[in-house]
């Protein structure tokens, strides 16, 4: 039908205009003609549209319209559409459109063109003859055409051409009706004219760019609308839900496909354009989270859409079920769609029009019919409910499958569902990780990792890795996991990590409502049950059979996400815990800010333990990070102390650095090899690189202990509190509060959280449990540490009291951003593995307890003249010296310490400004780059990050300098030199923080 129309119109145009150009234009015109007609119409006529004209229906669902064009039979569909659909369409139309028609129409046109062109060409030669005939036909078919036109118009330019189109349509209709033949020509002419006019204005007023979106709906129809080009996903999703009259929309989402089988969920919090990139603006409305108990949905219409989804899933084979189940579900579908079985009306064939199974047999249809008869009296809503009650028990209900390989390269499937992660080999479930068992989810490159809570008799957490086909697949899986965990297991979504300076990993978090929230919200729904018609199954079945709807067909059918399972009570508990944790955090933040002011923070008595623990934990985190970063980072089951701390993106750069040094005994080995510094730097680099790629703009995390940061803000602390992931850390934090080094802890956590696109981490649970475990494990260490700490305390005491006076060796470093690490001996770390080291994690302030002999690290900063001297003669576990106020001059000397073999020292110098609250603002990352240079004994890594915060742009340069060597090297001098150079390089910048992290191995020899 449509083709005819198109050809006719074109023909007429051609005849009228006779331009060769038109031949080309024709296709477009054909598509546009409807629009033109609409545009012509006057507003007054609009009223007619809705009321008198059949067109409105067509308008309501563009997709249906297309179908109608394709096959006259389909016309009927539009009529089936519920009235509200129509209304909505009018809505969309009403919206202002600008130009962009070309784009929007582009796709459609393509389709239409294919249809229209052929006829056009043919038509042209015969123009005159056909015209006459066409006119006649038009007259005869006037009504039909009108409908068609309207339809076609709607399709082509669903929402864009608001008033105009409608008007045109109306006009066209009227004209057609009244003046039949002539008017048609006229209208066509007019249309062409209009088109031109439109095109012209379009170009000029480009200010508001709109793009046409198509959304394949679950009933097989297509919805299209115009969106502002920079619109976020939420805008489109809301439009679709409005169109569907759907309130309980949190279970649903929009999919787009790259390639045919890679489906991605449109993130509603981000711009569509940035997500789909060059892909066409075509989406599929699908169930994203399959409610484990559909009976708890509030509205029948929601259940209806869920049914539609499941029918698709079943018919496509994505949701396998037995013969009997196919038949039973099919029979409920019939009952819902057709009502009671009527022997008169429902003869043998009536079932074949539906598709119930991928391989539907006669036998099955007979069984369906037999069962259908038994459902007599069930209302459609009841039939849907019964359908869902049976479907939800299927083992693959709500399971979103992803192809992967296990560590041995064996093909497996990872299934994400409401309860956790399922591992399948072929059709067999070979393992299962419930959400409560999973401590952390992360991905790096094409690897996907889960860290699992230790089993009853096991001591260590284990990390299990899977190989995904590619990086994007790994990220996709990770995101699905994050979303499912949040939706089904949390009461409220986590806050995405805030902007951080150095960020590794994705900041992605689920931003929608959780199941708990959506249930709560849906309890408030107060409207009469919306009217909707269940006429779709036939079409759906057809679509499934063939490949009815473009993308959606294949792509959709293949896989989709499912979330099944049952949200358990546990979750609630966890959530509560989280809540508490948050509270604690909040409290801690307050504490934290004050803490920061103290310039030297050393571990103190009672607090020591907690600090240590924290430190340990941090170290653990660091370890993790280090592991992650290590190129082969795959870790098999020995998870040792993974850092629970890292909340989502636990791999903060800082953390990493520390990790290297701090890495807990078991895992250290990995890190050591390169010395802490290098490892860290690598990590950083990677993160930065990723940053560019990342869509997420906020990134600011610095957790670099050993790094000197110029203009750097220490936001990490504050940030920590906010992150959802942090909940896990909460305990840590709280502990920290008590301890003297709150800032540290916070910083550490922040560092841990940073994410990358390449790397993403997510820690689903609160770590309380983990901590406990760790604590136990580490008790011994702690004890030892305590001893050390006591010693240390003395040292510390001095600094606090006077704010820092330590006579000892001073190294003055004038530099903006330098971090010195003296990794004299890497080997030391190894030695110490068992006990000693817990280092700083978070960026600046953490301490580790290492036994040191006197090592000294000196840092002087020109800008803020400060001299920090640490001489540690005797023994010091680890010292963290933090100077928060740059302006203050401080000297820190640490002396007297018993004896220790290895020492790790971190000194942080930071300017006050950024401390504390800075985390609050997430700036917008403009750019980030990392440069690394190496010399014989020095490795310098420079991060340059430009951020915009509150209208002020800020450039931060963070340099990490790793000085490696043995006693022969004068580290102080090297450091001084490095700082000096840094200053020279950036004369106009100020140094906000200097962190010196020193690791020395005294070992038996007692040297340094």
């Amino acid at each position, binding site marked *: 039908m449509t083709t005819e129309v198109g050809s006719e119109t074109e023909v007429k145009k051609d005849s009228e205009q006779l331009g060769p150009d038109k031949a080309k234009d024709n296709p477009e015109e054909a598509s546009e003609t409807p629009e033109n007609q609409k545009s012509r119409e006057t507003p007054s006529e609009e009223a007619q549209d809705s009321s008198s004209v059949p067109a409105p229906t067509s308008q309501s669902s563009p997709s249906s319209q297309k179908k109608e064009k394709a096959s006259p039979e389909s016309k009927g569909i539009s009529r089936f559409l519920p009235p509200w659909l129509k209304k909505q369409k009018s809505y969309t139309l009403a919206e202002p459109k600008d130009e962009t028609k070309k784009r929007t129409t582009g796709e459609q046109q393509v389709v239409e063109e294919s249809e229209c062109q052929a006829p056009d060409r043919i038509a042209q030669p015969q123009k005159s003859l056909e015209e006459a005939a066409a006119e006649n036909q038009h007259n005869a078919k006037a009504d039909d055409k009108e409908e068609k036109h309207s339809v076609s118009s709607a399709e082509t330019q669903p929402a864009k051409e608001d008033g105009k189109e409608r008007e045109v349509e109306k006009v066209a209709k009227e004209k057609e009706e009244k003046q039949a033949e002539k008017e048609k020509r006229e209208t066509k002419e007019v249309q062409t004219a209009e088109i031109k006019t439109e095109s012209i204005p379009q170009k000029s007023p480009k200010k508001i760019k709109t793009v046409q979106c198509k959304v394949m709906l679950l009933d097989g129809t297509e919805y299209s609308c115009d969106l502002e080009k920079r619109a976020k996903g939420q805008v489109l999703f809301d439009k679709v839900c409005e169109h569907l009259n759907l309130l309980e929309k949190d279970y649903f989402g929009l999919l787009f496909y790259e390639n045919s089988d890679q489906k991605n969920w449109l993130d509603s919090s981000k711009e569509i354009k940035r997500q789909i990139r060059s892909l066409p603006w075509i989406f599929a409305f699908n169930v994203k989270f399959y409610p484990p108990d559909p009976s708890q949905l509030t509205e029948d219409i929601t259940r209806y859409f869920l049914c539609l989804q499941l029918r698709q899933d079943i018919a496509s084979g994505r949701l396998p079920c*037995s013969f009997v189940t196919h038949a039973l579900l099919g029979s409920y579908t019939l009952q819902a769609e057709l009502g009671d079985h009527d022997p008169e009306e429902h003869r043998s064939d009536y079932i074949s029009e539906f598709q119930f199974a991928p391989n539907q047999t006669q036998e099955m249809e007979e069984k369906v019919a037999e069962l259908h008869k038994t459902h007599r009296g069930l209302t459609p809503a009841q039939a849907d409910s019964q359908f869902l009650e049976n479907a939800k028990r*299927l*083992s693959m209900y709500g399971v979103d499958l992803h192809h992967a390989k296990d560590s041995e390269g064996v093909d497996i499937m990872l299934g994400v569902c409401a309860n956790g992660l399922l591992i399948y080999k*072929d*059709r*067999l*479930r*070979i393992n*299962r990780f419930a959400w409560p068992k999973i401590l952390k989810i992360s991905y790096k490159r094409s690897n996907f990792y889960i860290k699992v809570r230790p089993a009853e008799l096991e001591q260590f957490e284990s990390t299990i890795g899977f190989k995904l086909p590619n990086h994007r697949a790994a990220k996709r899986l990770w995101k699905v996991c994050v979303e499912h965990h949040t939706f089904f297991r949390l009461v409220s979504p986590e806050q995405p990590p805030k902007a951080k300076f150095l960020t590794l990993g994705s900041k992605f978090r689920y931003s929608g409502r959780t199941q708990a929230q959506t249930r709560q919200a849906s309890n408030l729904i107060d409207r009469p049950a919306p009217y909707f018609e269940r006429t779709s199954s036939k079409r759906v079945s057809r679509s499934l059979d063939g490949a009815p709807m473009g993308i959606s067909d294949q792509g959709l059918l293949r896989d989709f996400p499912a979330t099944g399972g*049952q949200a358990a009570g546990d979750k609630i508990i966890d959530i509560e815990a989280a809540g508490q944790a948050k509270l604690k955090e909040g409290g801690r933040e307050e504490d934290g800010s004050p803490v920061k002011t103290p310039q030297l923070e050393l571990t103190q008595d009672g607090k020591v333990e907690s600090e240590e623990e924290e430190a340990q934990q941090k170290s653990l985190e660091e370890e993790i990070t280090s592991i992650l970063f290590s190129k082969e980072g795959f870790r098999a089951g020995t998870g040792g102390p993974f850092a629970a701390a890292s909340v989502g993106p636990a791999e903060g750069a800082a953390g990493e650095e520390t990790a290297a040094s701090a890495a807990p005994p078991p895992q250290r080995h990995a890190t050591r090899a390169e010395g802490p510094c290098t490892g860290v730097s690598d990590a950083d680099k990677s993160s930065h690189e990723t940053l560019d790629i990342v869509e997420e703009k906020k990134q600011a995390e610095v957790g670099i202990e050993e790094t000197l940061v110029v203009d750097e803000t220490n936001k990490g602390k504050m940030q920590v509190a906010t992150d959802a992931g942090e909940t896990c850390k909460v305990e840590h934090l709280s502990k920290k509060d008590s301890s003297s080094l709150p800032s540290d802890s916070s910083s550490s956590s922040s560092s841990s959280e940073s994410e990358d696109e390449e790397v993403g981490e997510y820690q689903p649970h609160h770590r309380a449990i983990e901590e406990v475990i760790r604590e136990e494990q580490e008790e011994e260490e702690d004890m030892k540490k305590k001893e050390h700490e006591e010693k240390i305390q003395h040292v510390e005491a001095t600094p606090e009291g006077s704010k820092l006076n330590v006579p000892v060796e001073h190294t003055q470093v004038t530099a903006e951003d330098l971090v010195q690490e003296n990794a004299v001996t890497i080997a030391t770390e190894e030695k110490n593995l068992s006990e000693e080291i817990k280092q700083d994690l978070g960026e600046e302030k953490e301490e580790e307890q290492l036994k040191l002999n006197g090592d000294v690290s000196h840092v002087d900063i020109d800008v803020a003249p400060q001299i920090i001297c640490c001489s540690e003669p005797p023994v010091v576990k680890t010292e963290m010296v933090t100077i928060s106020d740059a302006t203050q001059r401080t000297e820190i000397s640490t002396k007297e310490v018993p004896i220790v073999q290895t020492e790790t020292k971190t000194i942080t110098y930071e300017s006050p400004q950024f401390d504390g609250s800075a985390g609050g603002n997430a700036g917008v990352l403009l750019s980030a780059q990392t440069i690394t240079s190496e010399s014989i004994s020095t490795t310098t890594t420079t991060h340059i990050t430009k951020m915009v915060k509150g209208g002020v742009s800020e450039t931060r340069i963070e340099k990490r300098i790793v000085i490696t060597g043995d006693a022969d090297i004068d580290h102080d001098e090297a450091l001084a030199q490095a700082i000096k150079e840094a200053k020279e390089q950036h004369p106009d910048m100020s140094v906000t923080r200097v962190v010196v992290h020193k690791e020395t191995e005294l070992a038996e020899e007692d040297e340094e």
Partner: protein
Amino acid sequence: CRQALRRAPGPEVDFARAEREHQLYVGVLRGKLGLQVLELPADESLPDCAFVEDAAVVCEETALVTRPGAPSRRKEVEAVKRVLESLNLNIVEMIDENATLDGGDVLFTGREFFVGLSRRTNQRGAEILADTFKDYAVSTVPVHDALHLKSFCSMAGPNLIAIGSSEAAQKALKTMQQMSDHRYDKLTVPDDAAANCIYLNIPSKGHVLLHRAPEEYPESAKVFEKLKDHMLIPIANTELDKVDGSLTCCSVLINKTSEL
């Protein structure tokens, strides 16, 4: 049909006594519980043919005729298959020559399947089972130190797994618990062999449990006796026990009335 079979060297089977025990077993099912019992004729060429459980897995309307892991038992399935066909079940045969599956390795909990991967049952066999019963999750459980998965466990109630106390049994239970979305209650009995019992839910009689007699496993019997809601029927199985035969081995339960 119960004669010398494959087994680890052990005490000789008292054939007459085994016969009596089996008669009792059938008598309980048929007489006491009112079940319709279809007895297959014994085939002396197939010494293990008494253990019909291994030859088929029946769930709802579908019967999977297995391919037993022991080559000497492959022919047993033919007789079983004939009977199942007569019951109008949907028959699925395990044709794949790489697949082996003994019904004794299949534990159906009512919600899902667990398939023991033992010397008798392999991954491929489990896959075919999964393909046959698509509605249900099928999880694999490694079985060591036991003939079958159900050598040390079975269902003792709608949501209750009876499990032995051996290390192998407990390990398998842990695996099953981890793999399942559902939480089962467990009934731990001291003796692995006693953990194999037969649970029936008969409309007129409620929960019925056939378990090993106190004379055989007194401690385990005490545990069973604590089940208040069950009709408990102790059954001795001393002779077949010697050839690795357990209670469930000797029957296939089918929830269907036969017109035969």
